């Protein structure tokens, strides 16, 4: 992709015309400023974005957020909406970590309140929250129990005392997507998941304690229970091996039928089937089940975080309780209604590394957030800021109610490991007052801040473009990495 292949629509938005390639069905649009644009040109992400514009039934544009980077099939940061029911659904357009997402938890504690206990709290979080490669947890479930999780999502945790009703109310889809079918999920997926509920995993997944560094929208921040200097916690993880296997199974199944539907694609990882087909319906029901597993997973990790706060802080601070602010998915396909060419239409919105960002007034938002817009949780790279945003009218009008999901990688994992020493990175973070508890130093090096884009710049773009609005900036004080 060259700069002559696209045009600038406004200071934050660029377009690759549909005429760029004969197989593109719609234009491709991406949000960036000049620097993020140059970074996007550094890998194959914009070619992958153009590839996603070839999907049958795609409407309006293939979109990418400013944290776009190269993935497989879709770029990370991609958003594609397809017509219902004759458009396609693509498992690769959701990704292997189905309902990977972020949860933000609030406390009534300030940085000063926990300062004497921060080391112990970081260690207890690491001890209580299973993390790292191959680590199972305390919740070992048989197939029948896992099928119950698939049906009930975070509601499974509520039934067992691991959640409060408010936790579910303040979770996207209330922590349970309707229509999950346990029978559409393979025995192999249940095998992979048997001890993985309530575990963090590895890679870029983390639990982090942050302090609220700055507030940009006092009304929205107050509504969410955020205040300057407050300690909050983030969880970033997804559906673990359960979701990975669901995606693996359906990518393989779709390979065998895609030609029957007359679909020709530039990359086999984009494989898809009509949403109305048996394969499309089966994948949707299985994907919803994996999404429910992920909601339950983040809920059980919430329970373990609460346990950690009690273990360390009970009797030492006035109130060690931890409350839900919101929980969002950033790898998902959902049937939604949006306005396209002046008409309300039902579409299947694929968000792969993109966050739903519904604006004020949306009926699906919890009552407490309906007039401010949906909270959007954007973790930065380790050691840099994270952000709380809200969805806007602009996101509904421009991007199928979607915005960015993180900083976005800019450096390969192998280069990060060559250029960054994990122990030096840890010492550097510790010298800045950030406690680091990592399962592996080489894994830590792969996730070094220099491997990522500047998250503050990404946020300026989505804020400036009007597809989300800044509420609060968070900075880390403790990180538990898988």
């Amino acid at each position: 992709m060259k700069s002559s292949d696209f045009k600038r629509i406004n200071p934050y938005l660029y377009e690759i015309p549909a005429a760029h390639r004969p197989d593109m069905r719609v234009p491709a649009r991406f949000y960036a400023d000049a620097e993020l644009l140059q970074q996007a040109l550094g890998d194959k992400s914009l070619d992958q974005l153009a590839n996603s514009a070839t999907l049958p039934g795609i409407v309006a544009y293939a979109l990418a957020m400013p944290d776009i980077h190269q993935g497989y099939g879709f770029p990370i940061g991609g958003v594609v909406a397809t017509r219902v029911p004759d458009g396609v659904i693509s498992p690769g357009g959701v990704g292997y970590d189905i309902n990977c997402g972020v949860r933000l938890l609030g406390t009534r504690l300030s940085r000063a309140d926990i300062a004497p206990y921060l080391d112990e709290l970081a260690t207890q979080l690491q001890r209580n929250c299973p993390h790292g490669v191959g680590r199972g947890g305390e919740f070992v479930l048989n197939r029948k129990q896992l099928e119950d999780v698939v049906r009930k999502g975070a509601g499974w945790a509520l039934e067992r005392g691991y959640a409060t009703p408010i936790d579910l109310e303040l979770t996207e889809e209330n922590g349970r997507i309707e229509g999950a079918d346990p029978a559409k999920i393979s025995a192999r997926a249940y095998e992979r998941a048997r001890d993985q509920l309530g575990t963090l995993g590895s890679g870029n997944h983390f639990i982090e304690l942050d302090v609220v560094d700055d507030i940009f929208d006092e009304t929205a921040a107050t509504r969410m229970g955020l205040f300057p200097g407050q300690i909050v916690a983030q969880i970033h993880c997804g559906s673990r091996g359960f979701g990975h296997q669901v995606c693996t199974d359906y990518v393989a199944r779709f390979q065998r039928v895609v030609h029957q539907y007359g679909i020709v694609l530039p990359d086999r990882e984009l494989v898809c089937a009509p949403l109305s087909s048996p394969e499309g319906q089966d994948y949707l029901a299985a994907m919803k089940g994996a999404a429910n597993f992920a909601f339950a997973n983040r809920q059980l990790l919430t329970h373990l975080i609460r346990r950690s706060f009690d273990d360390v802080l009970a009797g030492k601070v006035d109130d060690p309780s931890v409350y839900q602010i919101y929980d969002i998915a950033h790898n998902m396909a959902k049937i939604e209604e949006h306005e396209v060419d002046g008409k309300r239409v039902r579409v299947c919105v694929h968000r792969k590394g993109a966050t739903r960002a519904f604006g004020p007034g949306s009926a699906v938002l919890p009552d407490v957030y309906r007039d401010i817009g949906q909270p959007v949780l954007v973790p930065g790279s380790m050691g840099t800021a994270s952000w709380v945003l809200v969805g806007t009218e602009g996101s509904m009008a421009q991007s199928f109610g979607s915005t960015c999901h993180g900083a976005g990688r800019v450096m390969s994992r192998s280069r990060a490991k060559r250029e960054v020493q994990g122990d030096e990175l840890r010492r550097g973070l510790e010298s800045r007052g950030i406690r680091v508890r990592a399962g592996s130093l080489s894994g830590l090096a792969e996730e070094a801040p220099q491997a990522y884009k500047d998250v503050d710049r990404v946020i300026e773009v989505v804020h400036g473009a009007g597809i989300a609005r800044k509420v609060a900036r968070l900075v880390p004080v403790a990180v538990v990495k898988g």
Partner: protein
Amino acid sequence: MMDAPEDDDIRIVEHTADWALRLRGDDLKALFARAAEGMAYLLAGDTSVVPRDLSRDLTLEAYDAEEMLVLFLGELVYWAERDGLVFPVADLRDVTPTRLVGTVSGGRPAEIQKHIKAVTYHDLAIRQTEAGLEVTVVFDV
């Protein structure tokens, strides 16, 4: 630090978000055996630390050679995650684009260093080159 083999037949390829291996072999048997070896390096960091006290038999059927490669490596991903096993050695008696019969050998290392979520089809194409068959496989990690 990962001790990658970095010979002409197994090479780590730069990828922004994930891991990719470029593999070469004289024929499908050799190519798939190098794929197993390369994936074992990603999983274990150093295949010399992997015991050789277990073997698993495999019989797979596929639509084409690329799907066969994904299915083959997918089996190894599954065993790594479910059982903590790594199989650096593949003795493949029969490999065609539609059928694979063979045995993989390895064991349980003290630690799996890299979690591989899945083997992808991204730009996956087995090509005939002057040096033999060549393919680049992207792993979601």
